[in-house]
Structure formats: C-alpha cells, structure tokens
C-alpha cells in the first residue's frame, strides 16, 4: 500500500456519493449558454433564406413558395450562425439536446399548419 500512491484517494472515494448523475432519473441541468438545438418561430419567419445560405453544413432549407422551413438535425453543428444572421429574429437556441436517433431526420415546419415533422421531434 505504501507504493500505491492513489490508495488514500480511492479510500476517500469509496465513501463519497458518485460524481456522475443518474441520468435520465436525474434530469440534466442546462447552462445558460448551452447550445442544444435550433427552434423556429414560424409566425415570425419571412422566408428570406439567409439562414440557409449562411449555414456551414447546408442543414437548413427554406422554401418561400410552400412557406416551409426545414432543418436536418444531424447535419446541424449548433454553431448558432443562423440565429445570429436572422433579420426577423425568428430563430433561437434551445438548451436541451435533440433525442438520439438511428435515422437521419429532417424536421420540417410550415407557416400554415405550424408544425409538420418527418422523423422524430426534438426533445
């Protein structure tokens, strides 16, 4: 034990609560700045398409004719570039992450019926 320098630390850790949280039983606490996923307020969207042009991964597509806005969740980097350049400020950052998925989903939103999603919704 004399040579095992970590012995004291291990003994101390044995009588402590685990450092890790029991997710999902214990809900994660999001920080004020955490970039989880992009949300859109379709009522405010003017379909200018600047977000789609500025997106580094082409995750966003905007269709002015059908008044729809779509995002490929698994392409999105959460860089925040889209909501920074949005002139109508209809895009925003939500702190929680999207649900893990086995398929590449595209979330599509239209102005008429507000939300129509193909694939799973963000969590």
């Amino acid at each position, binding site marked *: 034990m004399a040579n095992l*320098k*970590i012995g004291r630390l291990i003994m101390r850790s044995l009588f402590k609560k685990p450092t890790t949280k029991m997710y999902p039983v214990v809900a994660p606490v999001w920080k004020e700045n*955490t970039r989880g996923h992009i949300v859109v307020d379709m009522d405010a969207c003017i379909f200018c398409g600047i977000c789609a042009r*500025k*997106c580094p991964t082409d995750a966003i597509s905007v269709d002015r004719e059908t008044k729809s806005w779509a995002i490929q969740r698994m392409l999105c*980097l959460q860089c925040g570039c889209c909501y*920074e350049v949005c002139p109508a400020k209809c895009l925003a950052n939500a702190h929680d992450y999207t649900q893990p998925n086995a398929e590449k989903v595209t979330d599509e939103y239209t102005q008429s019926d507000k939300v129509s999603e193909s694939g799973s919704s963000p969590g």
Partner: protein
Amino acid sequence: MAKRTIIPFGPQHPVLPEPIHLDLVMEDETVVEAIPSIGFIHRGLEKLVEKNEWPEMVYVIERVCGICSFGHGWGYCKTIEGNMGVEVPPRAEYLRTIWAELGRIHSHLLWLGLTADGFGFESLFMHTWKIRETILDIFEETTGGRVIFSICKVGGVRKDISNEKLSEISEIIGNLKVELSELTDVFLNDVSVKNRLVGVGVMTKEEAVEFGAVGPTARASGVDNDVRRDGHGAYGELSFVPIVEAEGDCYARCKVRIREIFQSMNLIRQAVKQIPCGAVSVVVKGNPSGEYVGRMEQPRGEAYYYSKGSGTKFLERIRVRTPTAANIPALVHLLPGCDLADVPMLVLTIDPCISCTER
C-alpha cells in the same frame, strides 16, 4: 538473424483513441522497424473553403480537432485577421488566451487519463477525467459548447465573460490545483507508473530537433521551443517560462504535460487579474485578398495556418499543419529498438491526434 515477423498495430487498438496504423517489424520481442500509415479519417476540411464563405469557415475549421478546437478556430481567425490587417480588441485577446489555456488543461488531462488507461491504471484514468469534467463545465457555461465552442470569430469573440464569472473561474481553477496535486503525486511518484515510463523511448535533444518534434514531445527532450513566447493573444503581457525537461523519455513527456497544466492555471489566473474592459469584437469589412501564415502553440505543439484570399467571400486556399504531423517522424524514429509491450506507451506519449493530422 532471428526470424522477422510483422505485427499490425491499429487502426483499431485498445490504447488508440484515433486510428493510425503501424506495421511493426519484429525480431522476437523487439521492434526493428515501424511503418506508419494514415488516411482513415481524412475529411477534406480544407477543400470546404471553396464552398463556405470565410466568416462561416471558422465553424468548420474548429472541427479539425475535437480537443484543441478552440485553438484551431483561433489560428484560423488569426490568419484571416493578419490577411486583412484587423486589429483585435485587447479584451478579446485576453478571453481567447483564457479559453486557449482552458483548452490546454482539458487536452493534457485527457491525455493523462488516456495514458493511465494505456498502462492499465483504470482508477487513475477515472480520477483524471473527473477533474477534466470541471473544465468542460466551465466551457459550457462560458461558450455554450463542451467540446466544440464556436466562440471565436474573425475580429474578436462572439461572447464576453463577465468579470464576476471570470473571478469564479479563477476560484474553480484554484480548487482544481489542490485536486490535481494529489494526482500529480501518483503520476510522478507511483512505482507502478514509473516502471512503465522511466527510461522508455528516450529521444535526445539532437534527435528531437532533427526530426522536427514540436510541443511537449520536444520540450521533454530539452528543446526550448514554445510559440506562445512570440506574444500572440495576451501572452506578451503574461509572465511564463516554457516547461522544459532534459531526460527525453516517456516519464519526462508526462512530467512536462503535468507541469504545463499548472502553468496554464497560473496563466488563467494572471489573465483574469489583468483583463482590460472594452469591446470583444470589431466589425470586419471587405474580403481577404493576400496571403498570411500564422503560428499557434496548441496543446500538442506548434501548428501552422496558411490562408490565401481571392478578394471574394471564398478563400482560395487554407492549409493547416498540425503538431501530430510533425511528431509522427519522431515517433517512427523512436520505435525501433523498443519492446512490443512499450509500443503503446511510445505512441501515446507523443499525444497523437490523427483527426488533426488528416483534417
């Protein structure tokens, strides 16, 4: 002559966090030649400058590496700022320095954990990563991301950190110092750790210079080389002396990184004390048209960034030379003559980041 055998090492191997393949030519238990091959995770990030406008390219360049992502973003911004003659506000330079040093702590702690895992010391690995978690939390609170930050932009940074938050960070760093001191004792004085590291893979100062080693790998062999001394960011106003060790073995490389963590903690506390008030970014107008080469000291060593503008929104070329690309020749030189059992330690102690290397 003993019969020669070739043992493939990687790209999937328990000690390798990233894929590199080595063909180890063995005579009994001794390596006589090592032939490296990379190319498993080339993503063509440099090519994307043709598709992405230069202000947005910073988000892509950060993805060169998941560990020194802030440094890569800063390196890219620095080369564009140099190209366009942009003067960055002093507060932004200080904030960049603080984030870069937090990145260094997080990178070195990750490396220490992986090394502990590499020589089979699981509890040491867990305790090291527990400390690293605190740094990731600071990143999340200040930038919004834990690993990829998207905080640096050409002309400054995207978010400020309040002075209260900075003092809080300084306090957290002070507490971490105490926790890390305990682990330092294990890394540097535990018999089982020393048995795996001392005298293994010795690289002399001459060899390090000849093979162009950079960063902690070179500094552990006595090469006094640290790009931070050129005074970029706020480093010119902070006092520090590069950490250099003379032995050149795996133990020295470990010691340099541990001492650098403490040095980074001191740099952060100095920066928090000295940070000036003011703006954190300037508006950048126009497009880059010239050429510029910038150097940065990433956690793994010196990295080069080259940019060539075309006078439009799209750059003509960018080039990133990462520290691991410089350290692989030194590794290939180190391997012949070592035991097969020491190969994982030798590979790990250059802190290989293959994603960086292949971009």
